[in-house]
Each structure stands twice: as structure tokens, then as C-alpha cells.
């Protein structure tokens, strides 16, 4: 059916397009500005506007960032922590969710309540810190990975997914003499690739972007993930030693440190921004499954 718009409807549509356009501009402007400023020094960008000459472009910011040990180490630490965290999250969520998805599991209700309580009550920052400390995990990778690896939300997500799998398959396999383990590893897991992927993706991105746990539990700067290194550059204004070694004039120094900030923003966000269009539908799927609950 061809849609007929009346005059009033057209007005509404025009307003809609304008508002959405403005919102998109507001989102894109800072992002584009950061990318340009990382090649141009923000001063040039502000004073010259669009009259930018090819001679104004420079990759100095990137050279400085990429030749900085803390930054490189932070990047690899972040990859390592995020991958380990994603692995742990998938492991704990999938194994816990499978029994809970089975109808008639004895003791299912109390176990569910046991998990759900942690969604609403918590010991708080200090008591959790003390547990990590007492376990001797301070200043180790474990402190960043283990305390957050079990999330009730993820367990519910996986449980909902398992419950949607066709039960006839399990029953048939059971009749054919497959063991409980066999059913899980040979039938359930292969069918669960989408949910495993969604859980891993969410966990990876979450860990990649987080800084607070690392800030609390890690002291050794060699263990710092990217976000903590970024925090010292972007927020505490500590341009790492070695980035600006030569004794430059004060003004030059300031210009360069601004550039370094912009290029470090680009470098750190690049992996996710590149990944993101490919994984968008999985992110959306995660939100949708999570909302069914």
C-alpha cells in the first residue's frame, strides 16, 4: 500500500529528520574533530578552520604514542585481560546456566534465588577489596578477572537461550544412550555458538573499556591495562616520560601534548570502532535476549 502523507504529516516528518540530523551531527562532530585534531594539532584546526594546508598535517602524535612503552604494554595487557575475562565469563555462565535451564532440576529454585540475591545486595567496595586482599590477589591479574566473572545477568541470558533449544533433540539423544556429558558437549554446546559469541563479545568490550577494578587492585604500572595508561595521559595530564624528551619550547610542548591526547584517543578506540559495524547485530541480539528475562 502506497503511504499518503497529509500536509500535517509532512511537517512532522520534516521535524523528525531535522531533529535526528542534529542528534547525529552532535554525535559525529566530536568524533571527527578528535580524528582531525590527532593529525593537525587542535590549534591549527581552530584558527585555520577549513583553510588547512597539506603542510599542516603530521603524524607526530601517533609516532610518539606508538613509541611509548607504557602505551604499548597497556594495549597488550588490555588484550590479554579482556580475552581472559571473556573466556572466564563464558565458562562460568554457560556451565551454570545449563543445569538451571533443565526442567525439574532438584533444588533449582534455591540456587536461582542464591544467584539473584547478588543482583540486589552487595557487600560494597571495601569488603570486596578485603576479600581480594586476603586471597593474596592484590596486584595480580586474577583480581581484575575473577571477582566480576560470574554475572547473574549473563547466567540468565544463557539460561533463556538454552530453554529455547528444541528439547526433543536432547530426549532423542538420551534414548540413544548419550550421557549427560555427551548431550551437553555434543548437542547443546554446538547449538549455542550464538549465545557464547554474544557473551564473549560483551565481556571483552566491557573489560576493554573498564578501569576502576584495575585502578583499585593493581599497583605495578607494568600490569596496567590501556585505560589506566590513558587515564594518566588524558585526565591526570601526565604525558609519559620519553614522549616529549627533547627540551621543546613551552608552547610547542603544550601543542604536542594535546596532539598526543587526541591520537591516544583514536588509537585506543580504533579496535572497537573497526569491529563494531561487523558485530552490531550481535550486540543488538544481546540486548534483546537480555530484555526478555
Amino acid at each position, binding site marked *: 500500500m502506497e*503511504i499518503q*502523507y497529509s500536509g500535517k504529516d509532512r511537517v512532522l516528518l520534516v521535524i523528525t529528520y531535522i531533529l535526528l540530523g542534529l542528534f547525529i551531527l552532535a554525535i559525529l562532530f566530536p568524533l571527527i574533530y578528535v580524528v582531525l585534531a590527532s593529525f593537525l594539532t587542535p590549534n591549527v*584546526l581552530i584558527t585555520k578552520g577549513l583553510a588547512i594546508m597539506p603542510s599542516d598535517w603530521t603524524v607526530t602524535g601517533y609516532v610518539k604514542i606508538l613509541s611509548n612503552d607504557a602505551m604499548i604494554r597497556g594495549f597488550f595487557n588490555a588484550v590479554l585481560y579482556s580475552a581472559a575475562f571473556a573466556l572466564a565469563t563464558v565458562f562460568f555462565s554457560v*556451565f*551454570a546456566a545449563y543445569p538451571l535451564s533443565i526442567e525439574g532440576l532438584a533444588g533449582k529454585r534455591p540456587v536461582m534465588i542464591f*544467584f539473584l540475591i547478588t543482583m540486589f545486595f552487595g557487600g560494597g567496595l571495601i569488603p570486596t577489596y*578485603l576479600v581480594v586482599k586476603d586471597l593474596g590477589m592484590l596486584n595480580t591479574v586474577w583480581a581484575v578477572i575473577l571477582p566480576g566473572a560470574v554475572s547473574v545477568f549473563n547466567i540468565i541470558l544463557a539460561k533463556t537461550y538454552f530453554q529455547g533449544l528444541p528439547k526433543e533433540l536432547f530426549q532423542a539423544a538420551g534414548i540413544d544412550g548419550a550421557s549427560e556429558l555427551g548431550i551437553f558437549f555434543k548437542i547443546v554446546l554446538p547449538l549455542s555458538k550464538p549465545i557464547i559469541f554474544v557473551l564473549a563479545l560483551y565481556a571483552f568490550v566491557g573489560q576493554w573499556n573498564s578501569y576502576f577494578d584495575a585502578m583499585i587492585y593493581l599497583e605495578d604500572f607494568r600490569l596496567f591495562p590501556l585505560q589506566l595508561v590513558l587515564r594518566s595521559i588524558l585526565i591526570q595530564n601526565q604525558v609519559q616520560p620519553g614522549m616529549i624528551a627533547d627540551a621543546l619550547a613551552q608552547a610547542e610542548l603544550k601543542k604536542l601534548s594535546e596532539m598526543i591526547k587526541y591520537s591516544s584517543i583514536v588509537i585506543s578506540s580504533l579496535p572497537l*570502532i573497526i569491529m563494531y559495524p561487523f558485530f552490531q547485530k550481535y550486540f543488538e541480539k544481546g540486548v534483546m535476549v537480555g530484555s526478555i528475562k
Partner: protein
Amino acid sequence: MVSPGSTALTRHKSWLSYVRRHYILYLFLAPAVVLTVIFKYVPMYGAIIAFKDFSPRRGIMGSAWVGFEHFQRFLSSPNFYDILMNTLKLSAYGLILGFPVPILLALMLNLIRGAKLKKNIQLILYAPNFISVVVVTGMLFVFLSPTGVVNAVVTAFTGKPVSFMSDPAYFRSVYILSGIWQTAGWSSIIYVATLANVDPQLHDAATMDGASLLKRVRHIDLPALKPVMAVLFILAAGGIMSIGYEKAYLMQTALNTPTSEIIATYVYKVGLQAGDYAYSTAIGLFNSVINVILLVFVNTVVKRLNEGEGLY
């Protein structure tokens, strides 16, 4: 005739045999249960140090009870009122300003014809959600610095720059607006999906009857969103005391603390920076209690407004 006692016994027996038959399933559950006990339940027990004169040397059991002393100290401390009001204001304003934006975005997206265009718009709208708080806050600092791009515009009009990041007067606006910038698009997903499930025949029928686009949005789309709105509103209001302290902490400067100090950032400072474990835990506990009260209160109100449909 079976006596009550014997049914309980057989039930107990069958339970045991069930567990024995399916012990693998319980082994599957074990790792998550163990981790939850260690990192969730032990800290809950540890929270009793809020009522103790805690010293790490004497341990949780060995430390002496002090009752509500820490709570009284917090309630009577000179900055209690400011910190509490900062927490409430920051979240309440954030909720009032931020909650409607994703709904508005979803309603507008729903009016867009052309699946390809809609997908591309969504791709852009969601992107800021994948930038970390550290980077977003870092961007705020460089954009809003006295020599930054925003002040270049401000100076052109007023002649002098504004210290957005150090003036307490701007903390809330910067915090909330940047939050909307980062999350509004992503939060609209759930509403977009709900609207996609609205029966198109409803719209067709309304159009036949001569309803304008605006009327259809008001009488078909909005009512369809109502249940989701109610649940998300309760959840958001329930989290009011635990708002993004990670970002508040990053945005804090020595100068803007009059408005940026919230309970969560205070807990961190008192506890981990000053080492006053018990006092900090008491403040955190106080925060959680208010949170639960708010959750129950909002749920009751929404239930009444929403024909008995609440979160629980």
C-alpha cells in the same frame, strides 16, 4: 493412607537419588556457586565491619562492636548533606533529562522510511556507547578546556572562556549531557525493537480512519512502549544511588568537588585512599539502604499509575 512423615521421607530419598543420578549437573553449577560465595557472599558478611571498630590485624571477628557509631559520624559530618544532595540531584536530573531521549529517538527512528537509511542512522547513534568512560571524560577535558574548541566558540561570542571542568556550576550539566551523548542511542534499541513488533494492521486501520501521523504515534506507538517504559523507569530509579561513579570520579577536579562529590566517590576516597575501612563500609551500606527504599517506593508508584503492572 500415607502419613505426612513418610512422604517427606520419600521426597527426601527421591531428591537424593535425583542428585546422585544427575551429579554432573551439580558439578556444572559448582564453579559459579563457589565464585559467587567468595566474591559476593563473603563481602556481604564482611559488611558487618560497618558496625565494628575494624582493624585488619584483629580481623572481622576480633574487632569490637561499635553499633551505629560510624553511621552517626557520617550523618553528623559537615559534608553529609552536600554529598547526599549531590548524589540525589545528579541522578534525579540525569533520569529526568536522560530517560525520555531514547524513547524520542526510537519514535523518530520508527518514522524513517527506508531500512538502509534507518540502519545507518542506528549505526551512528550506537557508536559512542563503545567508547570507554576514560576516553569520553578525556574528550570532555580537552574539548572543554579554556583553550579547547568549545571555548574557542564561547570566547568568540562572550570574549572570555568558561572553565567548564573546574567550575562546580557546570559539573552536573557536563556530566548529564555527555551521558546522553554517549548512551541515548544505545538505550533506544529496546524501544525500537518494541515498536517493530507493533501490528502494522493497527496503523493501516488508523490511517484508513484518517488518523494523522502524530495521532498514530500518540495512540498506537506510545501505548505500545508503555510497559517497557515502566520497567526501565523502575530499574533506572532503583539504580539512582549507584549512578556511574566511575565517570564522576574521573570528572572530579580539586575545584569542582562542591557538586561532584557523591556518596560513591566519597566511599572510595574514605576507604581506599584514607584507609578508613569501617567508616567507608558504613557509608556504602547507608547508600544501599536508600537505594532499596527508592526501588520499593518507585515500584509502588509506577504500579499504581500503570494498572498494577510493576517490576514485581
